[in-house]
């Protein structure tokens, strides 16, 4: 019996060895990614082209810009506008006078350096119902931290949705300005960052800084459930990081009308952005845009080209009008002009934050 015991154990051990599975993910050709949209406001409209690298555990490389392409915008009358590539590779701009027209539909056509041709589906520009007013309110959101809630500001748009007409809305927050309040008097107490020049007593406490509102969620909606009804709905949210609402925050916002396809595309993107990893999340999915390869219709092209009617909105969010905000607020223990200061050892010379407001800065008086 003993004769068979060890060979049997050996056999069992051998049979339990795990052979690593040699999985080789197929790395497809880098997909062309198209970013950009055109609006009814005259100006340089931009389209950005990139090649998306494969995303995975192994670092493949950065998303390289797609340069030397021919980029054309065509309307349904046959008018063609050629976009010119800028010094920044992969960035293509129209002339400054270009603007989309409501009622017209537009196609984006791209011919890449290797002569591959792409065209977008036609995007119709529909007039956006104008906003009557924009208001805001402070909100407090339960967070994963049981002791501290999250704070932020919801921006509400008030407008009449036209009856009997399909409308698809999209609101986009743009780079905004805010008053940066610093507390340089506290520098000597708390000790500023290493290498920062000591702050003289007269140094600046109020600056005007730029900020891209976070989080970058997409606000979009279709009017299926409120056709013809007056709307007062949340069109933007800016998280209070303790710094933004120490004084005045001027939120730049675009109020747009999009097509049904674009609204659906944006909604799916938003769904993916809001994934938290919980079991209730929708599964990650491949979202198809409206760009088509004329040479190979099965080729994956990322991005959605769209053309919109637009209303630019500015909202001055003033601390004095907020019911509550994050406490304690973030302390900046240095001159505000040195807010972007980096240790010289990093080799990066940060620009000074301006102390003068933007030329069109005009907040309402309290």
């Amino acid at each position, binding site marked *: 019996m003993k004769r068979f015991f060890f060979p049997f154990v050996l056999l069992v051990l051998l049979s339990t060895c795990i052979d690593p599975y040699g999985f080789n993910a197929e790395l497809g050709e880098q997909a062309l990614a198209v970013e950009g949209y055109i609006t009814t406001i005259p100006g340089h409209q931009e389209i950005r082209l990139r090649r998306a690298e494969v995303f995975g555990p192994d670092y493949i490389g950065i998303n390289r810009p797609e340069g030397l392409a*021919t980029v*054309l915008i*065509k309307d*349904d*009358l*046959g*008018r*063609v506008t*050629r976009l010119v590539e800028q010094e920044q590779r992969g960035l293509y701009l129209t002339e400054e006078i270009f603007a989309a027209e409501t009622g017209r539909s537009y*196609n984006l*056509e791209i011919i890449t350096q290797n002569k591959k041709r792409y*065209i977008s*589906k*036609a995007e119709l520009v529909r007039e956006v119902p104008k906003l009557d007013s924009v208001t805001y309110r402070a909100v407090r959101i339960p967070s994963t931290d049981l002791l501290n809630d999250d704070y932020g500001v919801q921006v509400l748009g008030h407008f009449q949705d036209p009856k009997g007409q399909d409308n698809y809305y999209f609101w986009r927050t743009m780079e905004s300005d805010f008053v940066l309040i610093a507390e340089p008097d506290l520098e000597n107490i708390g000790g500023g960052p290493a290498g920062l020049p000591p702050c003289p007593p007269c140094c600046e406490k109020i600056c005007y800084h730029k900020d891209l509102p976070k989080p970058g969620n997409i606000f979009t909606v279709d009017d299926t459930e409120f056709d013809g009804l007056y709307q007062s709905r949340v069109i933007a949210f800016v998280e209070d990081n303790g710094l933004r609402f120490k004084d005045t925050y001027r939120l730049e916002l675009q109020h747009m009308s999009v097509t049904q396809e674009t609204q659906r595309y944006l909604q799916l993107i938003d769904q993916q952005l809001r994934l938290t990893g919980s079991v209730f999340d929708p599964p990650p999915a491949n979202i198809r845009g409206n760009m*088509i*390869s*004329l040479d190979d*219709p*099965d080729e994956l092209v990322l991005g959605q080209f769209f053309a919109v009617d637009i209303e630019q909105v500015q909202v001055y969010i003033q601390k004095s009008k907020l019911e509550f905000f994050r406490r304690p607020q973030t302390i900046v223990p240095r001159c505000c002009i040195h807010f972007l200061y980096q240790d010289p050892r990093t080799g990066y010379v940060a620009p000074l934050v301006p102390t003068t407001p933007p030329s069109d800065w005009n907040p309402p008086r309290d």
Partner: protein
Amino acid sequence: MKGRFTQILFLTLLLFTFSCEIEEVGTLNLLTEEIVNVSGERAVVLGRIIAFENIPVEDHGFYFAEEESFLDPIIISLGATERPGRFVGEVSGLQLGRNYFVKAFVVRAGEMIFANTLSFETLNPAILGYEPLVQFGGGEIVITGINLADDTRVFFGDREAEVREVIFGFQVRVTVPPIASSISEQIRVVTRGIELEVETPFRYAVGRFNLLDANALEGLSIVENIYFQQGERFFAGMGRDSGNQSTDFIWEYNFAQGEWVKTGFEARMQRAASDSHTGYFGGGFFQTSIFGPQIPSDNYWHFDGLEYKELPPAPINISDGFGYEIQGQFYIAGGTIGVGSQVYRYDPASNAWEIRPNLPSNVDKGMVHFVYNDHLYWIDRDNNLIQYNPFTAQSQTVSRYPSPMIENTTDSGGFALVMGDKVFIGLYNNAREIWELDMEILDWGRKQNFTGDARGRITGAYSKDGLLYFLRSYLINPRTEFWEFDPEAF
């Protein structure tokens, strides 16, 4: 009992038989999904094969036709495939402005299957414009339009021009045929049999130069001088010779004798003075000798056609500054000493100088400047044409000088002559280009390049009877040449 059992069994079997699902292997649906884009002669269409598995088909594609019956179709064949999903068809060579029908097809096991039919209308062509509006024979213009087909032909009058390229159906690069009998031609564009006429007539870049005197001003190569015109009388003088000889005189051109003769005016050697080109001049520097110190001068004169009348001394030293006359008042401005944008005005009525608002930027005599409709215009060294209202002190950039300027070589000197609503500008130092600027539409038209030696500088510019006259001085083989330019001759 047995019979009943048999009946039940039979019924059950019958039911089983009828409830069996007949599995259809490889069914597909075909869809002509969307017209993606339509232009004049081209259309892009999407089709889709809907199936739950790979189904091999021998061919797939689209039928295009002008009739819904598809009797004489244009067939776009995309070949065999087995993958369901969308496919794209692109057709070109369609007739402009026609209604077309399209339907997708597949060929499966020898059987042709068609999808639904969609229709679209191809667009009509139109011309939006062309540029430049003035060009030399053999040069290139670009015509911009919409829905131009690849067979586009362009005619200048009755003569066909060479089409170099049709760019994406909206631009046509054309070589201008040589000038024939007229400086203006009507452009016609023919695309897919449709003839379009361009609204603005094309103009050839013309002009003829004629050397009147190869050794004007007694053989001197005059620089840093002044020049002016009184009616049809041309004057030039002061400044210095390029060999640093003093040129204390003012010459006048005698048309009868065809030569420049000295007038009675004599001044001390005075250079870099401001002059309005209308008879007011002065300022700049005195030099008592060639190597003597430079002394700022405040001497100003006005020649009224009869005599040189001395003005009161200016309250500011200006050298190489602007001089211009607006509504009978003489302005001096800018210059290379002092602030560079200060302005003073001499009013003949009060015989006094007064300070005026500064110009928006520094100016000097090396910048071309002229007066049109009581506004001062000048071209700065970034090629901007700036309009300035001397009464409201408002300024704006209204256009750009089209020729490239090369720092320190061609961005100084030159001339500007106002003739009605046209201004002739050009011949910067060491440059050959002359442009005609239409002040009503601010459009620049090219003129024939200067045919003489380019390495000179303008030291006088006049106009008479629709002709331009100019003095051009040379530092190599020092001399001053006197030229006539007919802007309409060819």
